[in-house]
């Protein structure tokens, strides 16, 4: 339990660092030196010290938005096995709870954006409401896949100890699809290129950044931390899926985990550097790809995994 809580805290604290890594990779591809690797911590500290500017249009919902979205992100991390160790909490069906809590966070992010009466934020909110519908379908398809293989409905049954390795041995090829499908969901849910561009917010094509345009100071810091943690949540899952190896050597799982995380964040950074953002009406097709992959993988398991 103590170990799990420490890992949970470490994940929250390390989340900004890894997101900073993406900036470094993008700078590398651009032939630039880039910001310091700890830039996100500096930004958070700076924001926490500041005051806030509130729009006259806003209500209490605007202030609740950052709180609920961060609470959602750190609550779901509690149910996630980090580096293959037991999660802080776990119960039968916790995956469904986790997905719905993320939905709750989304509701409040959108509601906070609509609170400002800004046309830009309304536009971002409409997209934030749209794409995750398909993502959610894909996520549940992946859950059906996991359920087919393990017969369980909790994150700890998929990602602790040797469980992930067992999944590979049972359904290796389809699981490869799931990894790709999950990566697409990661890009969409965390508003990365090619779905969204986290680097700018002034173009009308933006989703997440434009929704938080009016937040400032500590409120904005909470939102930033929340999105770092959310990215951490998805990356941890992929990291565990691609490097599920176990060994008795002390620290081995942690090293494996960090290597996996590094791979995921580098992949996000590289994707961001070498691809352009899709036109908005192409995004649903991109997201549907992840659903199709997961669906295909599940169909394969019907025949080959008894």
């Amino acid at each position, binding site marked *: 339990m103590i170990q799990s809580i420490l890992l949970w805290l470490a994940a929250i604290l390390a989340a900004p660092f890894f997101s900073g890594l993406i900036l470094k990779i993008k700078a590398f591809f651009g032939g630039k030196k880039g910001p310091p690797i700890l830039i996100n911590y500096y930004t958070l500290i700076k924001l926490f010290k500041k005051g806030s500017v509130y729009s006259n*249009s806003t209500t209490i919902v605007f202030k609740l938005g950052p709180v609920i979205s961060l609470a959602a992100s750190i609550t779901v991390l509690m149910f996630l096995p980090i580096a293959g160790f037991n999660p802080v909490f776990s119960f039968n069906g916790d995956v469904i709870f986790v997905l719905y809590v993320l939905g709750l966070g989304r509701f409040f992010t959108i509601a906070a954006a*609509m609170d400002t009466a800004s046309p830009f934020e309304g536009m971002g909110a409409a997209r934030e409401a749209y794409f995750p519908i398909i993502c959610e379908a894909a996520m549940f398809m992946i859950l059906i896949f996991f359920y087919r293989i393990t017969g369980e409905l909790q994150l700890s049954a998929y990602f602790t100890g040797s469980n992930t390795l067992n999944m590979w041995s049972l359904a290796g090829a389809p699981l490869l699809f799931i990894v790709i499908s999950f990566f697409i969901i990661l890009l969409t849910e965390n508003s990365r290129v090619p779905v969204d561009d986290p680097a700018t917010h002034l173009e009308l094509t933006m989703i997440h950044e434009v929704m938080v345009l009016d937040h400032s100071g500590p409120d904005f810091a909470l939102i930033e931390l929340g999105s770092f943690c959310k990215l951490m949540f998805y990356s941890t899952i992929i990291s565990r899926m691609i490097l599920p190896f176990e060994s008795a050597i002390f620290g081995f799982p942690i090293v494996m985990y960090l290597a996996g995380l590094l791979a995921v964040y580098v992949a996000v950074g590289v994707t961001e550097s070498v691809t352009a953002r899709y036109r908005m009406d192409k995004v649903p097709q991109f997201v549907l790809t992840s659903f199709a992959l997961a669906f295909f993988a599940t169909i394969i398991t019907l025949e080959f995994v008894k």
Partner: protein
Amino acid sequence: MCQLFSSTCIILLGGFLSLFFARQKKFSKGIAVLFLSGGCLLGLIDAAGKLLDPAGAGASASFRYLDLFSLSFHVDGLAAFFLTAIFAVSLMAAIYSFHYMGNEENGIKTGVNYFFFSVLIAAMALVVTAANILTFMISWEIMSLSSFFLVIYSHESAENRKAGYLYFVFSHVGAMFILAAFGLIYGHTGNFDFASLADVPETVKILIFVFSFIGFGSKAGVFPFHVWLPHAHPAAPSHISAVMSGVMIKTGIYGILRIYAILDFHTPVFGYITLIAGVISGILGVVYALGQHDIKRLLAYHSVENIGIILIGLGVGMIGAATGNPLVAVLGFAGGILHVLNHSVFKSLLFMGAGMVLHQTGTRSIDALGGLLKGMKITGTTFIMGSLAICGLPPFNGFVSEFFIYMGSFKTIALGSSISFSMSVFAIISLAVIGGLALACFTKVVGVVFQGEPRTLAAENVKEKGWAMMVPMGLLAAACVIIGVFPKMFIHMALKAVQALGLDYGRVPVEPFGQISCNITFAALLFLVMALIIMGIRSTCYKNKTDKNTTSGTWGCGFSQPTVKMQYTGSSYAGSILAFFSAAAPLSEDHPPIKGRFPLKTHYHSHVNDIAELYMKNVVVRPVFYLFDKLRWMQHGDIHLYIGYILLAIVLLLFFI
């Protein structure tokens, strides 16, 4: 039983007295609200008591009138569960109506409204307790007719009269189907009782189920028989919409469950029919809801969606019962039945919120409103809570029942057969999509109606008033949270109702489900604690910073002359999602293009077509009209020939006896 009848009598007495004293407007209204809420409270205590009492056996009563026919009533777990929902929502609606019904209107009209309201509550209570075909049919018709008169309350408007007519036609076509199913039952058993139909051949049982599914489905609002629903609900006064959408349509669900129970025939086919009907109603209901511009119409379409979710749960339960898997069966049925209660709580809350908006602003058009949360703190907050609940988000009550249905559907995967696998994939994916779409729809309503800036004069400086309207909203919102965080008691109530279905499992084991409710409580509390901790951190961050916090206009990316018209509207918010579903929800637009150097004034109007309505008009209504047009010569007005027709019909029928 005695308590139930006395509460029904008190309710009816309230209606009569209100009509009798209609000229003294305030007195008539007060006495009606007093009697109605008193009667409902009494009934609620009785029904909930029966459900919570572990040893509580059913109660029966029967009357005979001149030996012609017998009226008999029976309260079992299922009936008591629906009674609880009916009395709870009616109680809230009765209190709400005290301030909602204006004093300036014609007193007779108010009296008539209360009279039919009381008849509707009593009829609903009798429908769910009826123990034979005759009693059921009589109560069912009284219920349909009384709600018809409530729908045409504002009969001055042609639109409302049309809505009432549509409702009348649908409820009677539906009643004909139910009658056909009952006729089959009577034909094979020879008596009117809802006794077990063990000896009836299986094909007949399937036919009975299909007929009653169509008949009850048209009352419940199952796609494609839901066409009346989005017309009738906005037409009725808001407290009536709350009762109709919250509990009256659930009598259709009750009917399906009751017929399923007495058929005593566990075939997966019933499960497939119910589940697929649920999936289609669920997804299309929420897609059409997303396209609406009228807040009450939008909520009415959400009833179609939630009926879909309930049917998915029941379908999963039926598949579980047919394949002999008690856990799946109980999870599915309990989830569906619990969602009946949950939906009646949050939907009546939302209709009351919409009613308050309509009452204070005079408009139901979403795009004409905005920024109402600032003046309507209680309405806005409770409406947001209701929205979270209807989206199925934790820690609110919608999550609990959806969680049960999810668990049941996932367990169906393990049953093995490929049909049940594809059914469970259907159920799970559609539940996920429905959840996402409902979130989009309610962020639209909350964002456009309650947040931002007022879009028209109607929405400016609006305040809320009337404690009788706010108290029920507060209570219902509290119920959403209580069921969402501490669902144990309510799960037990649902399990008691499942027990009455007679699934051959004897007593339904409570322990595994108690564990689920503990998990939900734990997770909900965990989230709330996290939110509180972060709120604490936030407030320490803002300590001593009052000088640093400033207010200003919304950042317009450098543009300094924003107007309220530039805000995203509900139509634009939903536009891209509707485009994705354009095959099922074709959009018709009316937008003369802007031409020339000095363009004329233009307008934009969009309407999302309901394909059921569209096809019903072209495929059913037109051919029927054409056919009857050809038969018009029979209707000549000569009374002698009419009597001849009757004689001829009787003589012809004699050959079949």
